[in-house]
């Protein structure tokens, strides 16, 4: 099984975010981490490789710091990495990111392409599905299980409110992976050492320029959301706060 995992580097979950001067984006001086759903996608690819043999390739598009995500993936067991590293890739919408990926992998023959179900920064949940349409491949989203069978794969799709659905699909296919599909592994020291020697191919904008166009949508402004709720902050020592809370529970919420 030759599997491509599309990964993204996003600001850390608890990173304090500040708007940049033009309020068009955030200030970049925060800590970054791998997009959590993508980590699950990688883990799933590694498990499929362990079961069926093959190769796991990881790809990302972003500035130089995004390479960290690829290095960690290689350390965990991915075989090769592709980095679309060029300032021109930053700020591309899902449509163009998918087009850039498709152009970068045009000479490869993957059986499966995984993405996380969505990114924790933009949260659009689109890149994987857009890529499927561009490649003309079948796809399924929010996947919690993948089994190989004679005609291709059987996947378990997560629906709302605790419902699920199995879907049979031919290969090649694209799947967007849900968090919690598996338990994430840690990179071993040996893995980290081996990662240094694994191929990491850099792709400049010039190589895929023909495939990429202008964004189809534009973030006009970014801002701190306006609060609609009147939140009352309760302060004091733990004991004082506990008493204040009980006071609210009794007199305002009326559950005591």
């Amino acid at each position, binding site marked *: 099984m030759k599997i491509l995992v599309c990964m993204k580097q996003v600001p850390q*979950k*608890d990173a304090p*975010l500040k*708007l940049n001067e033009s309020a068009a984006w*955030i200030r970049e001086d925060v800590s970054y981490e791998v997009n959590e759903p993508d980590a699950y996608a990688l883990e799933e690819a590694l498990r499929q490789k362990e079961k069926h043999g093959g190769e796991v390739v990881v790809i990302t598009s972003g500035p130089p710091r995004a390479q960290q995500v690829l290095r960690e993936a290689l350390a965990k067991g991915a075989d090769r990495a592709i980095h679309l590293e060029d300032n021109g890739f930053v700020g591309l*919408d899902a*449509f163009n990111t*998918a087009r850039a990926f498709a152009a970068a992998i045009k000479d490869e023959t993957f059986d499966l392409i995984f993405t996380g179900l969505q990114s924790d920064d933009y*949260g*659009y*949940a*689109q890149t994987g*599905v*857009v890529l*499927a*349409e561009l490649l003309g491949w*079948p*796809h*399924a*989203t*929010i996947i919690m299980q993948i089994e190989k069978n004679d005609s291709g794969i059987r996947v378990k*799709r*997560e629906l*709302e*409110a*605790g*419902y*699920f*659905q*199995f*879907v*049979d*699909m*031919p290969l090649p296919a694209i799947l967007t992976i*849900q*968090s*919690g599909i598996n338990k994430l592994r840690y990179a071993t020291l040996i893995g980290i050492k081996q990662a240094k020697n694994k191929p990491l191919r850099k792709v400049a904008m010039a190589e895929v320029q023909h495939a990429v166009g*202008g964004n*189809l*949508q534009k*973030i*006009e402004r*970014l*801002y*701190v*959301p*306006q*609060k609609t*709720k009147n*939140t*009352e902050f309760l302060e004091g020592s*733990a*004991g004082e706060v*506990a*008493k204040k*809370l*009980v006071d609210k*529970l009794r007199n305002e919420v009326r*559950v*005591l």
Partner: protein
Amino acid sequence: MSDTILVVVEQREGKLNRVSWETLTAGQALAAETGWALEAAVIGSGVGNFASEVAAKKISKVYAVESPKLEPYTPDAFSAALKQFIETKQPKLVLMPHTYQVRDFVPKLATAMGRTAISDCIGYKKEGGKLLFTRQMFQGKLAADVSFACDAPWFVTFQNGAFRGDKAEAGASAAPVETFNVQIADGVIRNKPQEVFKEAKQAVDLTQAEIIVSVGRGIKEQKNIELAKQLAEALGGELAASRPICDSGWLPMDRQIGSSGQTVAPKLYLALGISGAIQHIVGMKGSRTIIAINKDSEAPIFEIADYAVVGNLFDIVPPLIEEVKKAKTSG
């Protein structure tokens, strides 16, 4: 191209998805704002009755987009059907609820038409004749106003709860219903979906709980859940959790609150160590009173909390349990 707003209503397993009424409310508001006509479409096989149900609302026309190949749902069939419909009827703005099904096909449909979707929006603005759609970024820490930089049709999906379904206006008389038959060629549909099912039995129905004590990653370890359990018991409530807690197996899946789990609206929702990621918030933002305890003052949960405590839940919950017990015995 006619200046029309099209609301795509969702039906699944023989039922109209009620979140579609929220999208209709949004469509009515946008129609009033822009002066454009409002129409709706239901996609499936034998969906005439759903179309009639929608036609009772204040709307110009409802379409039943039909093909036997549209049942069961597949992204290939839905994308092909809506593409045919949209190319024929040419609406300017296409609105859908941000359901798991819509997420599964709308990016494909938009891409097939050389267009884009602004997804999971919580509202809209009209500025200088341009429509801007507001959506949350960075798990709710920031908001963005997004515009289209391409021609119509424009695709927008709205977050659950962004609009009120019960505010969808009824029409003075039933709108006309028209069947639009689509042709889906052999070989278009590649996925073979099986029956939808619920995993394991549900031991607890959180939608019936008046009081819910919910834990997030801030609970740190499985053994600490005992503390939250004691608080829930003291209050006479149910224990619940955000997704990561259930993914780790610390609580069973039927305790999960959020887009993949239960949606609840209890009298009291007490969030312990929950940051307030969007996927969780959509499952509990309708709660009558929300109390949040989190040591991160920037946690998005504080945007929707009625009462907030910025502090360490391990310091606060033990005395809270004692005070609750005291209050209960003192009658």
